[in-house]
């Protein structure tokens, strides 16, 4: 059974239909790279998976929970579905460790000591052990994004959604973040990434999804899809960004 199942999802902002019937199945351990032009609906699709956006028809289930169900407890869903944003969105009034500790202590009612131990573990995983007590403003963009990843990991998510997480970074800082994501992929974390990093999508992804005009236009194994795009739209897209 798939971990995330998306069935014929449609979503409009007013008269503008941005998702025109999207279906996708994501199994445990998949690393799905969603690519496409801006406005193709890829970020919107990602944000529908954890209920940050609503959709008008179709269905999405994540870890067996129907996202837009009438009685859905979004809080329960979000405990298992992490998200990392383009703009990091760290809490500026809290240190790196406190950012990581907040959800475990508040939502999962874990003790401070236990949460701090978890924070130390996940911050070590992203290579920021020595920055536990630094405030976000004292960290570089790459470091902030790694704290944001650690903050999601502290909740032990079953799937991690990454929304263009390197797009706001200076070019020299992109790799330190990608290395962390690659490490997670190797450890078997289920990842859904909206990304512009084609090389990363090809090398690390297990599945490539090309979105075009609100639909899944082409999907498959990244290396094969990149080597031989079937549709002219993807050929053109790969030609432009590759």
């Amino acid at each position, binding site marked *: 059974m798939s971990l995330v199942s998306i069935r014929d999802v449609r979503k409009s902002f007013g008269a503008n239909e941005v998702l025109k019937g999207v279906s996708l199945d994501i199994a445990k351990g998949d690393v799905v790279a969603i690519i496409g032009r801006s406005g193709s609906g890829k970020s919107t699709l990602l944000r529908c998976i954890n209920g*940050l956006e609503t959709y008008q028809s179709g269905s999405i289930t994540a870890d067996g929970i129907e996202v837009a169900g009438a009685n859905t407890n979004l809080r329960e869903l*979000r405990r298992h579905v*992490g998200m990392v944003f383009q703009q990091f969105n760290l809490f500026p*009034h809290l240190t790196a460790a406190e950012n990581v500790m*907040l959800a475990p202590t508040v*939502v999962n009612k874990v003790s401070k000591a236990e949460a701090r131990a978890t924070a130390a573990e996940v911050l070590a995983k992203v290579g920021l052990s020595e920055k536990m007590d630094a405030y976000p403003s004292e960290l570089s963009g790459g470091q902030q994004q790694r704290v944001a990843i650690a903050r999601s990991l502290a909740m032990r998510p079953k799937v991690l959604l990454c929304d263009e997480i390197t797009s706001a970074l200076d070019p020299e800082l992109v790799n330190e973040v990608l290395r962390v994501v690659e490490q997670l992929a190797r450890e078997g974390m289920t990842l859904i990434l909206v990304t512009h990093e084609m090389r990363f999508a090809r090398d690390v992804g297990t599945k490539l999804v090309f979105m075009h005009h609100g639909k899944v236009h082409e999907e498959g194994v990244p290396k094969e899809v990149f080597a031989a795009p079937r549709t002219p739209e993807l050929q053109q897209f790969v030609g432009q960004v590759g």
Partner: protein
Amino acid sequence: MLQFSFWDILSNLLIATQWTIVLSLIAFFCGGIVGLILLFMRTSQIAPLEWFTKIYIEFFQGTPLLMQLFLFFFGIALFGVEVSPWTAATLALTFWTSAFLTEIWRGCVESIPKGQWEASSSLALSYIEQMRYVILPQASRIAIAPTVGFSVQVIKGTALASIIGFVELTKAGTMLNNATFRPFLVYSLVALIYFCLCFPLSWWAKKIEGRLNVAR
């Protein structure tokens, strides 16, 4: 006839000033508590709660404080409940203060970037938890200066309670004037005392604002 010396006038005014201060403090703190509850309702995205607070705020911001004092003083009496000037003044000033504080604070909450809400939602925090741990700690820093600034309005607003017979600084001034027939002296002193109460607060608000502008 009883003679009032300058010191008699001043000491009587200062005694009444205590009541201006007490009324201001009560209005400010009770108004702050009511305002905080209204703030949670106003930003809850639950339609009936939002509508209630909108109407509440429109009413208390859109009518003169003096009318509100009259409504509480005479209006509640219509239901057969005896209302002292003290109770009416406290209630009216509390509600009036809460309406303004809610709007000031809503502005501060809305100035927090949307990403903070999205990140905390994604971490499974509930609305109350988001406010408590993520939004208010940031918004309150921004809110201090305008809140302190508004407290000056509250102090000056208490002067209107004199009209329903509550003896605070302004009412004491009127009474002393009636007894001494020295309006210029009496009201100059009244104004000076108000200024001494308000100026430090305005000055403090300015100082906080300046400090926040250089903070990270």
